[in-house]
């Protein structure tokens, strides 16, 4: 006899198991419609791989696992896929979730399938793949993918003990009990496969002492194997994984840990049978044993039922009378939950359908204040302080809840059962667990958002700085360009400079007074400006002139212009100026001639007063003109140098520069200098020429003025 241990707390509720034990396992048969939820396990929902209208055979995979912690779903019988839609499932929320609906053809034709009869020589990976492909999830109630649990030990330690859980401590439920009683060989065969996968030092089949027939069957089946059937006193909740491990090994799973941490793997009896059927016969998990019990059914018992069968179908088979029902519960009275509608399907974790009457399971009496009696703490199998947790839950003190190990609560309901004030303690813990989980998720999300927000701010700032830097660089480049241009290109700037100076000079002249409209002593005045000033002067003096005088003045002006134009023309021809310039000058002269003739005729017509003058207009000036010229001369004389001398000097300078440039150009050409130098020299000469012409004209004019 093995030594057994005890765990803290626990309760002894009325068992009510005998009702469903009177009959052997019955086959439920094939319902007209099967509803297969895609999420019958813990982990990611499976992904459907069938289309509406598709014919499927019994055992055919209809949804593949989506991710590592996920299992596939198989067709429990042959038929047609009629819908892939949201249907209400057995869940306390009463929410709908994605389901595959199969209308059965009642032929129950199997898909081609084969197990691994020689599984003893198969390797672990093959066996695990087989278990995974069979869609097996823990059948005790949680529904964790079995292949994941068997395949990897996240903490890396070795496993020394394999525990088969045949406890079934919850009242009313007898599914594992009848399984062990009637299919002990399958249980043992499945356990041998698990042994091969886990390679434990010892294998323990834990059964409570309230199942003597099951214990006997198991012991018989275990004869000649290295498996131990361990019997221990009945107490709720010894079927809890951690509690069972403590009973069998005396070791406690650490808070927040897994059984694997202390070298134990625990599997349900039903799971062992499913593994056996999958590996040896190649049958996926498409059916399970479900207890239908409670006083609202006439013939309570256990059914071998296809997954996806509506619960109402099973209830009908059991002689269900709806008018006696208080509420329909999936699972037992301790940990089960009320299901909203009897049409919901049986899934991989449905071990019991409880249909109690009002008398059997009365609605919970109203909760009364906690009297701090401490019965809950005595009952708690996880050695927690339920009363403290209750206060913290009510106060929403989540940090303290965690500090008091709320997450070690297995929600067994022993505390609620023990509570003399009928406080629904487990409901508080469930809600608080969800709140804490949600809070943690929110915190993680807010941390994530903060990181992203800060990264964005940083990026925006960086972009702004880059833009600013670019702008500054552009501005500096523009300034540098402007400076360079100012330094290097003073020659090119000459016209602008000259224009500015001209404007200044003009202003100065205007300030000098109107009676002495004179040419500013700037050498490089453009001809147009000079002409305008001359015209102004002429108008000023001709204000009180007779028509004859006016006509004569006009004639003189015209003659002057003609002479100038002719002089320019000859100069241009001599210098070999461009043809267009010469043409333009010729055209101008041609235009002037008729005007001159007209003016001459006018003068002639005006009679004696008008005295025709010969062509060189410079010698002849009328009185007003002469006066102006004189005044200018007088003004010029006040300066150190007369304008004439200045102009003369300027002209000389320009001539010298031109001569020098030409000499340089000739020398460069002879030496065969760079084209760029020659070009530059030529350009300089071209620029000098108009200046020279202007200076020449000025000198001539000034000379004319002086002579007059």
């Amino acid at each position, binding site marked *: 006899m093995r030594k057994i241990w005890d765990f803290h707390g626990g309760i002894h509720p009325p068992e009510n198991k005998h009702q469903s034990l009177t009959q052997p396992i019955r086959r439920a048969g094939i319902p007209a419609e099967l509803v297969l939820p895609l*999420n019958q396990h813990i982990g990611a929902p499976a992904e459907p791989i069938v289309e509406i209208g598709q014919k499927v055979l019994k055992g055919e995979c209809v949804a593949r696992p989506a991710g590592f912690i996920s299992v596939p779903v198989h067709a429990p019988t042959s038929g047609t896929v009629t819908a892939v839609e949201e249907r209400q499932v057995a869940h306390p929320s009463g929410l709908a979730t994605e389901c595959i609906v199969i209308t059965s053809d009642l032929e129950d034709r199997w898909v081609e399938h084969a197990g691994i009869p020689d599984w003893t020589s198969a390797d672990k990976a093959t066996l695990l793949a087989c278990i995974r492909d069979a869609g097996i999830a823990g059948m005790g109630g949680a529904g964790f993918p079995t292949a994941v649990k068997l395949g990897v030990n996240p903490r890396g330690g070795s496993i020394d003990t394999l525990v088969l859980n045949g406890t079934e401590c919850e009242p009313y439920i007898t599914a594992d009990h009848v399984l062990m009683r009637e299919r002990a060989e399958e249980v043992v065969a499945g356990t041998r496969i698990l042994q091969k996968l886990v390679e434990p030092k010892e294998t323990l089949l834990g059964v409570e002492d309230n199942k003597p027939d099951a214990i006997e069957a198991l012991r018989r089946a275990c004869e000649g194997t290295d498996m131990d059937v361990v019997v221990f006193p009945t107490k709720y909740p010894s079927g809890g994984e951690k509690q069972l491990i403590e009973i069998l090994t005396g070791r406690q799973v650490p808070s927040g840990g897994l059984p694997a941490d202390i070298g134990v793997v625990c599997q349900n009896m039903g799971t062992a049978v499913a593994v056996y059927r999958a590996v040896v016969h190649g049958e996926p998990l498409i059916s399970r044993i479900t207890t239908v019990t409670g006083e609202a059914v006439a013939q309570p018992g256990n059914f071998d039922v296809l997954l996806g069968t509506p619960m109402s179908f099973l209830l009908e088979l059991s002689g269900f009378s709806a008018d006696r029902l208080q509420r329909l519960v999936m699972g037992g009275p301790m940990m089960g939950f009320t299901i909203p509608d009897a049409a919901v399907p049986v899934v991989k974790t449905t071990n019991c359908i409880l249909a109690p009457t009002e008398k059997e399971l009365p609605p919970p009496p109203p909760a009364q204040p906690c009297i701090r009696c401490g019965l809950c703490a005595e009952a708690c199998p996880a050695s927690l302080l339920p009363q403290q947790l209750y206060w913290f839950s*009510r106060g929403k003190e989540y940090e303290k809840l965690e500090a008091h190990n709320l997450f070690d609560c297995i929600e067994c309901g022993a505390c609620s059962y023990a509570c003399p004030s009928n406080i629904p303690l487990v409901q508080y813990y469930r809600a608080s667990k969800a709140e804490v989980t949600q809070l943690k998720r929110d915190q993680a999300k807010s941390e994530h*958002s903060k990181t*992203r*927000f800060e990264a964005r701010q940083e990026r925006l700032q960086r972009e702004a700085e880059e833009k600013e830097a670019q702008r500054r660089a552009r501005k500096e480049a523009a300034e540098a360009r402007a400076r360079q241009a100012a330094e290097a290109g003073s020659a090119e700037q000459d016209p602008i400079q000259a224009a500015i100076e001209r404007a200044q000079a003009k202003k100065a002249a205007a300030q000098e007074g109107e009676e002495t409209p004179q040419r500013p002593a700037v050498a490089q005045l453009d001809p147009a400006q000079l002409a305008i000033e001359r015209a102004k002067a002429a108008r000023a003096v001709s204000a009180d002139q007779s028509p004859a005088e006016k006509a004569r003045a006009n004639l003189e002006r015209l003659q002057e212009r003609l002479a100038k134009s002719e002089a320019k023309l000859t100069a241009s021809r001599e210098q070999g100026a461009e043809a267009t310039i010469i043409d333009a000058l010729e055209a101008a002269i041609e235009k002037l001639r008729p005007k001159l003739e007209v003016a001459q005729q006018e003068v002639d017509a005006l009679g004696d007063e008008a005295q025709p003058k010969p062509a060189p207009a410079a010698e002849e000036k009328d009185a007003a003109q002469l006066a102006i010229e004189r005044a200018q001369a007088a003004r010029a004389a006040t300066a150190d140098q007369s304008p004439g001398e200045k102009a003369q000097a300027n002209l000389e300078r320009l001539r010298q520069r031109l001569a020098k440039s030409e000499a340089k150009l000739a020398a460069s050409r002879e030496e065969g200098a760079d084209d760029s130098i020659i070009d530059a020299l030529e350009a300089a000469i071209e620029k000098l020429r108009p200046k020279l012409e202007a200076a020449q004209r000025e000198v001539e004019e000034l000379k004319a003025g002086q002579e007059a």
Partner: protein
Amino acid sequence: MYEWIAQQPFLAALIALVMLGAVFGALLGFASEKFKVEGNSVVEDINAILPQTQCGQCGYPGCRPYAEAIAEGEAINRCPPGGEAGIAQLADLLDVEPIPLDEAHGEEAALPSVAFIHEEDCIGCTKCIQACPVDAILGAAKQMHTVITSECTGCDLCVDPCPVDCIEMVSEELTLASWHWDLPSRDDSATIIATDRIATDRDAA
């Protein structure tokens, strides 16, 4: 030495105390330099409680500025996304009385929501991208935009800038994965004691 101490006990004590003071002062000074805490830890703590939606409903341009304002004495009830739970946490941290949420800044949503872009209406103006504080919108000029749901904080700052009103805030759907038990409702009967109940039963009968 001893003689001098014996003769001048008052001076000796004074000197000894001054020396002790100097030594401990130096120690404290060294410690304050060595174990200096960078930044304002209160602001950091407040900021850690705020939901980081960066929605600006509090009137500040982001969660951190509001955290700084709270540290300066701003009211703690201006954050609708944080809700009553957030206010309770802030009150706990700052040791003040929790106050109800200021409705002027918005109401606490029952379920978190995320932005959804009706992609057939999107003209690709990038205005929402510029508005999003956490870069949760993907798109380019004249290209259709979409919201990266897992990154969206539900701040709804992108809704207003949209010139074609193609952004909608969608509440997260309640699924089996997101559903959870609520705290048991506490009715008034919870306050009666057993003798009261017998009395009421008798009254009823």
